[in-house]
């Protein structure tokens, strides 16, 4: 399948998702408001921390705003269009992947774009506001744009990578969602303080350093080298996640028992 048809398929999937999601507009507005307050309260908790202790290894509340903004924009953009990745463990568990495997399109893209969650738009808007408040958006807009694109690619890879656990953990959807929440908690803390075991985990096991430590340090130190490292790490992780998915697909057990002869 050519690139042009892949792109046509993607744009159609996105359009359909958007139409379906704006149907409940009042609920959407309510969700957006609660999300603003939720993220605001979370950051206010950190504001109190930085009011008491001025910085964590050079990271101040500005960097915390930037980290929270970048992480929320990236992961929420993925969830808006590719909520299918969050549903993937349930699909694997219930043996419902056939409908995607039998299509000529790319299986990962089909699964990912099969659902969307427009309510996460509020997190994207709040995240953008936080990035704006951090002051980095106006100082280096191009780098911020690059980091957001890489963050979206990273978040896509992360959700795909963690969803692959479903091929081995039967009935493990709840557990996988808990792991995703735990990873989100750890990724949204100031990672400049990490060392030892946590540093190893954040680089090689669940490489969240490529969406938290490296991009923030690249922007803070105006370092093109760290930005390049973020790009390379993200692309390698994306390729690794896709390969892991296809490898794990060999362990997939269909829920269909075939025709009853």
């Amino acid at each position, binding site marked *: 399948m050519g690139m042009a048809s892949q792109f046509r398929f993607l744009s159609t999937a996105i359009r359909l998702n958007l139409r379906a999601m704006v149907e409940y507009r009042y609920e959407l507005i309510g969700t957006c408001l609660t999300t603003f307050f939720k993220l605001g309260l979370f950051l206010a908790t950190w504001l109190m921390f930085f009011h008491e202790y001025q910085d964590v290894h050079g990271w101040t509340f500005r960097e915390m705003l930037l980290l929270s903004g970048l992480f929320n924009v990236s992961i929420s953009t993925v969830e808006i269009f590719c909520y299918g990745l969050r549903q993937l463990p349930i699909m694997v568990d219930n043996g419902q992947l056939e409908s995607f495997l039998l299509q000529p399109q790319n299986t990962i893209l089909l699964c990912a774009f099969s659902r969307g969650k427009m309510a996460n738009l509020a997190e994207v808007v709040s995240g953008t506001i936080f990035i704006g408040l951090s002051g980095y958006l106006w100082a280096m807009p191009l780098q911020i744009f690059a980091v957001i694109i890489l963050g979206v690619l990273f978040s896509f890879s992360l959700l795909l990578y963690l969803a692959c656990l479903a091929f081995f953990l039967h009935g493990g959807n709840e557990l996988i969602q808990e792991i995703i929440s735990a990873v989100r*908690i750890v990724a949204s803390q100031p990672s400049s303080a990490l060392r030892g075991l946590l540093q190893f985990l954040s680089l090689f096991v669940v490489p969240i350093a490529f969406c938290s430590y490296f991009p923030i340090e690249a922007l803070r130190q105006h370092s093109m080298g760290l930005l390049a490292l973020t790009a390379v790490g993200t692309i390698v992780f994306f390729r690794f996640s896709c390969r892991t998915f296809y490898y794990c697909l060999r362990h997939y057990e269909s829920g269909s028992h075939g025709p009853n002869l």
Partner: protein
Amino acid sequence: MGWSTRHMLFLAFNWERRRHVQWILRSLVYLLILLLFSQIFSSVHASEDRFVYLAVTQLVILGCRKITFSIEQDIQCRNWPTLMLLPSSYFLRKVEEGLGASLWSCAVLAVAACIFGPFCGIISWPPAGRIPLALLCGLLSLIIQLLMGFWIGLLTFWLRDVRNLYFLNLSATFLFGGLILPIDLYPAAFRHCCFLTPYPWILWAPASTIVNGTGQLLLKVGGALAWIGIFCWIAHRTMARLLQAIQLRG
């Protein structure tokens, strides 16, 4: 109280005990968070008390069972017989079920903190005399969280999706309860505002009892009991309205 509610607490406790993968994973997440914050606190040269405080607040938050989502499921699946027809009260059943599961989770997390605490930087333990009152405050904190969770869960009937409301409540708990820093360190005006909400009795009361001792006993226990009374009343009123709406609409 019927048989099922009287024994629900023990059943939930035993049921949670058998979910090995869940509680092992939760303990790992808890230890990872402790390790992360021990590194953050050591990098800002914070005292050990701050870290012990955080270990208790995280324990109370991670250990409490999220009953909101099971209630949400009951309502979304229109599981009315569970709500209305069983002889025991749905309210009591859910709260006791949550309490039983939370007690097991908290016990496991506390053991994990005791065993692995020294690796995360906890060198000295608080005097044993503080523990009974801290346990009482912890128990009251779990009950307040469960009552709030129960009430938010019931709102599913009117709001369709309460996940955002649940997480908003959680974020409010972090800020007004003092998850990372004790609210005693907040600016005075803001600290007074915090005490107008139920959140300090969820996090601050048990954690500050462990760290600072058994002072302000009346504030810690009396305040928690008052909030439990308020939330019981709100939950009962909401439950009555829900049952009325189900009977009218079907």
